[in-house]
C-alpha cells in the first residue's frame, strides 16, 4: 500500500510510532497530485511549499517527543471558498481569481493549531452554486471513478481529491447538498453538520442561513476525527452554537441494536434510478440485520423544499455577493463612472449560474414580491422543519438516497438548470431544516459507479449519525478505491 492510500487515523498511528515521517507523507501525496491531478483537476491551487514546511514542523515535534494532534502531519485539502491567509481563495470565480485573504477562517485556525498539512485548495462550482463543478470559472473536475463523469458539487474538487488519494481528507461546504452529493458520486464519506455546529467565519458565503462546513473523508472514523477538530463555539460567528462539541470519536461504536430508522417514502419517488433505490434499501436491510428497526415514514412537505430553497438561497446570495463590486478587492472591470465600473465588473466577473441566482434572489426580495416569494419560502421552510421534528419524535435516524442517481456525464445536464437542481432533491430539505446528514457509500452501479446513502438525524445528533455510519461500514464492504478509468 502506498502512503497516500491510508486513512488519517491509520497514518496518525504510523506517525506516532515513527514508521513514517510527515515529510514522507507530504511528499508522497504531492507526488500523487503531480501524477494525477492533470486528469482529475481537483485542485485550483497546490501549496507544496507550505505543505512541506508544515510537515517539517510536525516531524520536529515528533522528534522532540511532543504529543501530536490526531490530524497533525496528515495531508488535507480545503475547498477554495474557505479563507486561508496568504493563499489565494478564489471560490472558482473570475471575480476572486486573485483574491488572497489576509486572514484565516476559524476552521483553518483550528487546523493550523492541529498541525494539519495543507496540500491545496480544491475546485468548486463558482461560489458553491452547482452540483457538478461545471460552474467553476476555471475547469471541471473529473470523477476518479470515470473521468468523463462529474464528481458532483459544489465540493466536487474536495470529494475527487479524497477519492483519488490526492489528499487524505478534505473540507467542503454544504448549502443544499454540496458535501453529501459529491461524497456519494465519488464514493467517500461526507458529513454536513448541524447548522451552527461548525463556525462559518471565513467561509465565503453563498447562503448564510444554510451554509455549513464539513468533512469529506475516506472512512467514518476519519470523519469523526475531522469533525472533532473543526467544531465548537466561535464567538466570531453569531450563528455558531454556544456549547462545547462532544468527542465524536467516542461515537465510533459498532452497535445499532434497537435503532429506529425512518424511511421517508417521498425520497423514493418514481423516476429515481432503480439501482440507487435498490442499493439504499439493501443498506437499510444491512442495518436491520444488525438489530435496527426500519419502517416507512412520510415527510409531506418534501416536494416544496426545493422551490423554497431556490428562493431563500438565491435571495441571500443576491445580497452576499453584492460586495464583489470591484471597489476594494477582486476583479475590476473598467468603466467611465462608478455605475459603469460596477456593471462591467459583475458582467465579466461572474459566470452564468451565479448571475442566474443573483437575479432570482434580487427578484424574490424586490418590493411587491417579497411576501409572495421570500416570506412564503420562509413559511415553507418552517413546515419542512416541522416534518422532521415530528419524524424524530419516533425515529432516531432517517435514511434516504443521497442523490437520485450516480454520477452523470460531464455536459449531460448542463443545458437544463432545473435538471441539475434535481440532483440536490434529497439533500436540500436537510439544509432547510438545519439538521445534520452524512453520506457514505452503500453500493455500486453495474457500470461501477458508487452510490451514496444518506443518514439524517435531528439537530446535534452527529454522534448518532457517526455510530450508525460506523456500524454500517464495519458490517459491509463498500469502501473501495476508484478505478481511475480514463487516466
Amino acid at each position: 500500500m502506498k502512503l497516500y492510500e491510508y486513512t488519517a487515523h491509520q497514518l496518525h498511528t504510523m506517525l506516532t510510532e515513527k514508521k513514517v515521517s510527515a515529510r514522507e507523507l507530504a511528499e508522497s501525496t504531492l507526488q500523487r497530485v503531480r501524477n494525477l491531478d492533470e486528469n482529475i483537476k481537483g485542485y485550483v491551487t497546490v501549496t507544496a511549499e507550505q505543505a512541506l514546511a508544515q510537515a517539517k514542523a510536525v516531524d520536529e515535534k515528533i522528534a522532540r517527543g511532543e504529543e501530536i494532534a490526531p490530524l497533525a502531519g496528515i495531508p488535507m485539502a480545503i475547498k477554495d471558498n474557505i479563507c486561508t491567509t496568504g493563499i489565494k481563495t478564489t471560490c472558482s470565480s473570475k471575480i476572486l481569481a486573485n483574491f488572497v485573504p489576509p486572514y484565516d477562517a476559524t476552521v483553518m485556525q483550528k487546523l493550523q493549531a492541529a498541525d494539519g498539512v495543507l496540500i491545496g485548495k480544491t475546485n468548486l462550482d463558482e461560489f458553491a452554486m452547482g452540483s457538478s463543478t461545471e460552474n467553476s470559472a476555471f475547469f471541471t473536475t473529473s470523477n476518479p471513478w470515470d473521468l468523463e463523469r462529474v464528481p458532483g458539487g459544489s465540493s466536487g474538487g474536495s470529494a475527487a481529491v479524497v477519492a483519488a488519494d490526492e489528499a487524505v481528507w478534505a473540507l467542503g461546504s454544504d448549502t443544499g447538498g454540496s458535501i453529501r452529493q459529491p461524497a456519494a458520486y465519488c464514493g467517500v464519506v461526507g458529513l454536513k453538520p448541524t447548522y451552527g455546529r461548525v463556525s462559518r467565519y471565513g467561509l465565503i458565503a453563498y447562503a448564510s442561513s444554510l451554509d455549513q462546513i464539513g468533512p469529506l473523508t475516506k472512512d467514518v472514523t476519519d470523519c469523526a476525527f475531522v469533525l472533532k477538530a473543526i467544531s465548537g463555539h466561535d464567538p466570531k460567528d453569531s450563528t455558531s452554537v454556544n456549547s462545547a462539541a462532544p468527542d465524536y470519536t467516542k461515537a465510533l461504536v459498532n452497535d445499532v441494536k434497537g435503532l429506529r430508522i425512518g424511511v421517508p417514502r417521498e425520497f423514493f419517488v418514481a423516476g429515481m434510478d432503480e439501482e440507487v433505490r435498490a442499493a439504499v434499501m439493501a443498506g437499510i436491510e444491512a442495518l436491520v440485520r444488525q438489530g435496527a428497526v426500519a419502517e416507512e415514514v412520510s415527510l409531506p412537505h418534501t416536494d416544496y423544499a426545493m422551490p423554497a430553497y431556490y428562493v431563500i438561497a438565491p435571495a441571500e446570495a443576491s445580497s452576499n455577493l453584492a460586495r464583489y463590486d470591484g471597489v476594494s478587492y477582486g476583479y475590476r472591470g473598467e468603466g467611465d463612472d462608478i455605475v459603469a465600473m460596477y456593471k462591467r465588473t459583475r458582467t465579466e466577473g461572474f459566470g452564468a449560474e451565479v448571475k442566474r441566482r443573483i437575479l432570482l434572489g434580487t427578484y424574490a426580495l424586490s418590493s411587491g414580491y417579497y411576501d409572495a416569494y421570500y416570506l412564503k419560502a420562509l413559511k415553507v421552510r418552517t413546515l419542512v422543519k416541522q416534518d422532521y421534528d415530528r419524524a424524530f419524535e419516533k425515529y432516531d435516524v432517517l435514511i434516504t438516497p443521497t442523490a437520485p442517481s450516480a454520477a452523470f456525464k460531464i455536459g449531460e445536464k448542463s443545458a437544463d438548470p432545473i435538471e441539475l437542481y434535481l440532483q440536490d432533491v434529497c439533500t436540500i430539505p436537510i439544509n432547510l431544516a438545519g439538521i445534520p446528514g452524512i453520506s457514505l457509500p452503500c453500493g455500486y452501479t453495474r457500470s461501477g459507479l458508487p452510490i451514496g446513502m444518506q443518514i439524517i438525524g435531528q439537530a446535534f445528533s452527529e454522534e448518532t449519525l457517526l455510530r450508525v455510519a460506523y456500524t454500517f461500514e464495519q458490517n459491509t464492504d463498500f469502501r473501495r478505491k476508484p478505478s481511475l478509468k480514463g487516466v
Partner: protein
Amino acid sequence: MKYEIVIGLEVHAELKTNSKIFCGCSTHFGAEQNTNVCPVCLGLPGSLPVLNQRAVEFAIRAGLALNCEIAEFSKFDRKNYYYPDLPKDYQISQYDLPVCKNGYLDIEVNGETKRIGITRIHLEEDAGKLVHPQTITTSNYAYVDYNRTGVPLVEIVSEPDIRTPEEARAYLTKLRSILEYCDVSDCKMEEGSLRCDANISLRPAGADYFGTKAELKNMNSFKAVQKGLEYEAMRQEDVLADGGAIRQETRTWDEARGVTLSMRSKEQAHDYRYFPDPDLVPLLISREQVEEVRTSLPELPDARKDRLVEQDGLSSYDAEVITASRAVADYYDAVKKLVDDPKTIANWIMGDMMKQLNTRGLSITASPVTPVHLAEMIQLLNKGTISGKIAKNVFEEMFVSGKKPAEIVKEQGLVQISDESAIIAIVEQVIAANPQSVADFRAGKEKAIGFLVGQVMKQSKGRANPEMVNKLLKERL
C-alpha cells in the same frame, strides 16, 4: 390659501462606544485613514458581524431618555444598495423591529411647551467616507476611508409633529442636549457624529391629510436645517400658489446658494430589498436589562432645569441656557457646591465665560478657569475684596494664565480700597480739581456726580469701593 408646514426629522447620531458595532475596531475619530479596519468592517469575503452589546445598551439609554418603549424582541436587517463607501453593498440596519419606538421629547418655542413624538429609534452601522483628490465635481476618481465604516449609529425618526423650521431647530437642540446628557453621542455635526435629514410638506391650514413631501438632505448645521426648511417651505408654497404640484423627491440643500435642488425623484428611489440578516441572531432585550439601564440614567435636561428654577431660584431662561449642555450644567453645579450664589454663578457662566469660550472655540470642560477658581473669585467679590469691575479683569486674567484669582489680585494689587480715609483723600482731590462739576451738581444736575465718581475710580485704578465713593462724595458735596 394659507398653508401649514409639516416637518418630520430623521437624525443619525454616532454612538460613542469604544469599538464598532459589529467588530472590535476602534471608533476613534481622526485616526490615519484606513487604520481602524479589519476583515469584518471591510466586508471581506467570509467575514461575519458580531453585535457589540454596548451599542445596544446605548440605544436603550437614548430610547429611555426619549420616553420610548424598548422592544423585547428586535432584529437586524440588510438594506441593500450599491455605493463605494459601503463595502458589503448592504448596510446592516433595522427595518420593522427597531430597538425603541413610541417616544417623545418636549420643546419650548416662544415660551410654550410642545411635545414632538418620536416614531422609532433603530441601530445601524455607519458607512465609510469618500475622499476626493480635488473637489467632488473636478475629481475623476475618489478614495475610500473605511475608518468610519461600522461605527454604531442610532437613527431617530420623529413623528411629523413639527410645524415650523424654528421648531425643527428647537427639536434638534433638545435632542442633542438629551443625547449628550445620557452620554451616548458626542453630537458633533462638524465631525459628522450628528446628521439630520428632513421630510417637509405643506397642507392647507387645518387639513387632516398630508401633502406630498420632499426629503431634504445635506444640511450640515442646525442653522442650515432651519434655513433649508425655510427655503423649501417657501419653494413649495410658490409651486402650490402657481397651481403646481409638489413632486415626491429627494432634494439637497445648497448652503452656498441658499437653495434646495432636486437629487432624485420617487421613480428613481432605491428598492432596498430589506430582509433579515442571516448572519445575526434576533436581539432579545430582557426587562431586567432595561431597568438596569434606566437606573443608570443621569438627570435629564428638563428635570435639571426644573431643579435650577425651583431649588436655586434661577429664572426659567437662565436655567434653560445653563442646562442646554450637560457640561455647562455640571460646571454650574460644581461651582454652586463651593459658593451658594446661583444667580451670580449663572451670570458669570452665561456672560464672561461663554464669551471667552466662544472666542477661543473651547468647550467648558477645557476652560482654564476651573469651577474652584470661579467659586473663589465670586467669594472675593462677595466679601468685597474686589469690585465687580475688577472681577471682570481678574476673570480674563484667570482665563489667560490659569492662575488662581487670589494670586492675581495679590500680584496686581487689585484689592478693593475700602479704607475710608484713603478714599476720602482721593474724593477731596477730585472735588478740588473739578469745580465746574461740583457747581453743576449743587445746581441740581444730578448727573454730574457720575462724572465725579468716575474720576475717583480712575484715580484709584478702579480699586475704590464704589459704594463708599458714592457715599463719601455725597457727604462732601
